[in-house]
């Protein structure tokens, strides 16, 4: 049995310790917001927070995540009101939406560490997240918008 703390809840899961966290989260815990895109740390669709850091859950073994604090897109906010989520909504960022959990989870770490990112900072932080629908321009604009909202004191 491996203990996983996901979005503040403890789960005991019976999984092969080598199983990537991605599949444990999706197939065993049934939290399907975290996506499979490449399985090879290339696309960022599977990004979750492990002790506050953005990690690719497709290449993170469950054994490494055991006992650590994991946050998935479902836990980014309680009421879909993280400044990023609000900005995403306002700027109609998602197209198909499949990559967006990963985009948001990467952006959330960026925004926490750098509340006032430049275009260059955004490019650097977000270049691990592929969007086949090509929403990059809006992702960038929405991160700026969320940063502004955060500065103006929107709740996080």
């Amino acid at each position: 049995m491996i203990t996983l703390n996901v979005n503040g809840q403890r789960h005991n899961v019976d999984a092969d310790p080598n199983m990537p966290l991605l599949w444990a989260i999706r197939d065993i815990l049934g939290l399907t917001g975290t996506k499979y895109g490449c399985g090879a740390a290339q696309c960022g669709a599977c990004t979750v927070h492990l002790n506050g850091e953005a990690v690719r859950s497709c290449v993170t073994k469950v054994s490494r995540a055991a006992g650590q604090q994991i946050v998935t897109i479902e836990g980014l906010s309680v009421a879909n009101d993280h400044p990023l989520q609000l900005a995403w909504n306002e700027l109609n960022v998602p197209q198909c939406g499949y990559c967006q959990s990963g985009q948001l989870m990467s952006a959330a770490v960026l925004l926490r560490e750098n509340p006032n990112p430049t275009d260059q900072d955004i490019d650097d932080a977000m270049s691990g997240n592929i969007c086949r629908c090509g929403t990059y321009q809006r992702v960038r604009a929405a991160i700026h918008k969320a940063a502004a909202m955060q500065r103006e004191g929107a709740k996080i």
Partner: protein
Amino acid sequence: METKEVSRRNFLRVTGIAGTALCLGFYFPANAKQEELVTASGAADSEIEMNAWIRIDANGKVTLTDHRAEMGQGSYQSVPQIIAEELEVDLKDINVVFAQGDQAKYGSQITGGSSTIRGIYKKLLKLSATAREMLITAAATKWNVPGGECYAESGHVIHKPSGKKFNYGELVAVASKLPAPKEVKLKKISEYKLIRKPLQKLDTPLKTNGGAIFGLDKKLPGMLYAVVERNPRQRGKVKSFSDAAALKVPGVKHVFKVQMKVFNTIREGVAVVADSTWAAMQGRKVLHVEWDDSGFEHVNSADLFKRQEELLRKEEGLFAKKQGDPDKAIEQAAKKIDVIYQTPYQAHSAMEPLNCVAYYQSDKVEVWGPIQAPDWVQGGISTEFKIPKEKIIVNMTFLGGGFGRKAFLDYPLEAVTISKEIGKPVQVVWTREDDMTQGPFRAGISYRGQGAIENGEISALKFKMAGQNIDHWNSPKRDHANGSTTEGFLNPYFESIKNISFADVPFEMPLPNMWWRSVYASTNGFAYESFMNEMAVLAGQDQLDFRRRYLKDERCQRLIDKMEEVSGWKSRKKGDGFGVAITECFTSTVGQVVKVSRRADGKVKIDHVWAVMDCGWYVNPDIISAQVEGSIVMALGAATTHEITFKDGLTEQQNFYNYQMPRMSDMPLVEVHVMDNDADAGGVGEPGLPPFSPALTDAIFDLTGKRIRKLPFDMNAV
């Protein structure tokens, strides 16, 4: 159900079948040209299978059935936006559900050809206005006042003189018993309150909190997971396999051979079924399969393109279009060019890899998945498994991208095959590698352009293409030209250029291929519009002025005006790095101006893309912008970062590490302008893609003097 003898045209019967809901939809008579509008009571009376497109219940809640897939192109938003406008309800009060696949009910459901809105908007407007009028009539009846004194707003009918109001829910019981009016008045464009506004999309909240259910997110009780090791040369056979090691992997339950029809060939593979995706993948790793790859050519990309080029030089091909005598004009001309363009094979690489859930039971089959064409899937399952359509339920989930690939039947059929074999519900998961290596691919096509200039005018244009034809898998013998040889090329050119021809040189390869976003326009557009730019240079003219002379149609002229205006075209200087292209597909025309410059480190970068879309009547300009932005990124990737190549019949790219996608840092500034006119609606999901690569290479020519004729090319090397 009690039935009565009624004329199929008479939908005006009163029955209790609708209960306390007002339902309106269409009936698609099998052999009629025009679908007919029906109410639920009418449908019940005449035993018509109706699609309840709009349903208003006693609480005033509006449920809309979206007959098309939502794969990022925005039908989930634009269809409600149309309905809310004429129905006079607030967008937030509309609940959208996806239809199941059923052609008898919904007509064609294929989300392709950028057809969702242009195919149906007039009917949706009428349907919504009809419902509104019936609600107004119901209110007038209840108040016993003339209908003319009442109007509808925000889900209510209001009696103007007295200010009394009913909400829609209070009216459905009466309205559902009314006959549908024959004629209803539709709003003028100037009266629209929602249509043409950049409203926020209804599905964004679901797509920002993990709530949207894509195919891969669908789970059923007792469901198993399968992965399939398919022949890497796509059309080879399984000679033998050993399942011993795979069956020892904890969680693995079954290993067996599967065959799948792909067009007119059979794809073979071995399925590994387990209790989790991961276990199935582990089992597959230790599977040992011997393939029989005899009987077909093992393709090498370099040879393939060489052969296409040779064919273009040797053969005239099959004419798709010919007027005048281009050969003679070219022969006589002093100024002429003769060049070859090449475009690569491409994978669709939707962000959500292919997958499908199927449950085959003795009395019914049900599938769930990211499906672009649910009605085709229903038909395909019916044919392959000899099951009547009524027993097949095809459910669309959200699609994590489609781009044409998810309109194909192989992956749902494969899932049904596997479920049938194990007698349990199963989710078949394609890994990224499966999705990328198996195809069907966009075919790589070579083009030859020959043209002549006489007195500064085009005296002849002659185009030939050589590449696999999408149809070829169905009918390998090619005796007529590909019907899409001119796709992407603007029609008005044919009116002003006297000597012009398009031909298709048949070219066969044992590689699976099919449509990819914007279909042939995605490759044709690059060749034909690059050539127009080369002709402009040969004629010594400005590329847009040059086009103006041949695109006399008024909409084209206005589009060019707009392109010039927004991009500052006229004030640019030669060598500033400006390029241009205009293409048409799915009845929308898009012009793009691209600006590039050389950075301090010597590399060329894209500074700005101005896109002007003329798609006629439209719903949501922000969705159009998003579609064009996305199309440009997809075109950028196909022009500069990725291609599918083959070596000894094997696909050389497996995953994003060797099929590189554009990233955030590659994203140029894109500015989209939508032309205002009320011509019939055209598509918006695809037409933004084709003009980008010819405009980009034209901009690079302007900056560097180098003309790029083969895609993809390396932006770092120009």
